[in-house]
């Protein structure tokens, strides 16, 4: 275990650092922006601006399980989740998307973002399978939000510690 993390670890092996201490905002933004460019499209930019709250919020989330336990939640309007899935699959080749398609594609986006953030952690951790829905689990007390805009619409990434269960 790294010295940095060892100092912040209790006797039972849990990490006492907050989500923001482990995953600084600028690093999270860099990971998310790179994923948007390589996964959503070469000219698809995630802009660091606050957007309007979505009318129909829709979320995808993954848990990170290791010395630090946390959750990464992406939330946007359901129509934005559809557009993201459409981009993911290649807009020109996709017809009508089913709800299953959107949940699957949006969940995979959360999986990839979670994987990118997990790689920033100082110790090896495990990623849980992605879940999708309108009502994500409650965030931990140390939650912080990375607010962005994609195609003029709000996309939030919320990160928090989850001490007990996902």
């Amino acid at each position: 275990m790294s010295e940095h993390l060892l100092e912040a670890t209790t006797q039972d092996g849990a990490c006492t650092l907050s989500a923001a201490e482990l995953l600084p905002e600028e690093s999270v933004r860099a990971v998310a922006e790179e994923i948007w460019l390589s996964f959503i499209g070469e000219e698809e930019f995630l802009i660091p601006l606050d957007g309007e709250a979505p009318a129909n919020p829709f979320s995808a989330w993954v848990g990170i399980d290791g010395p630090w336990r946390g959750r990464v939640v992406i939330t946007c309007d359901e129509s934005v989740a559809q557009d993201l899935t459409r981009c993911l699959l290649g807009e020109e080749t996709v017809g009508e998307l089913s709800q299953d398609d959107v949940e699957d594609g949006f969940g995979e986006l959360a999986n990839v973002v979670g994987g990118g953030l997990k790689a920033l952690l100082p110790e090896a951790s495990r990623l849980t399978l992605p879940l999708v829905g309108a009502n994500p689990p409650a965030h931990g007390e140390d939650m912080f939000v990375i607010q962005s805009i994609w195609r003029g619409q709000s996309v939030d990434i919320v990160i928090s510690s989850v001490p007990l269960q996902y």
Partner: protein
Amino acid sequence: MHALVIDDSRAMRRIVGGILSDLGYEVEQAGDGQEALNVLEAGRVPDLACVDWNMPVMDGLSFVSAVRANPAWRDMTLMMVTTESEHGQIVRALAAGAHEYLIKPFTPDALRDKLSLLGLVPVEVP
């Protein structure tokens, strides 16, 4: 050439499968390692398997180990395609018998480059 794309995400199967189809592969899909083993046991052994790591039922590492434990499948090329990017995980996968490792997210060019390294690009793409 025949490829098997193993991923619990239909979107990822569609993306990887699409790239491989464009390269001339006949593509089959499986949603987890066990489903993929069923394909092999049915006699449909591919030249290439693209394997996600984190999947329900049977994960990618277990699938790679199961394939490598069966001499009848030794000619299969195994490429992990996963969000797992830590050095230790890459070493584990290669030690278990994967030939190559591609980290998500990736571009079509990155997948083609990996296949070129493996000598598995069946058609010349402009």
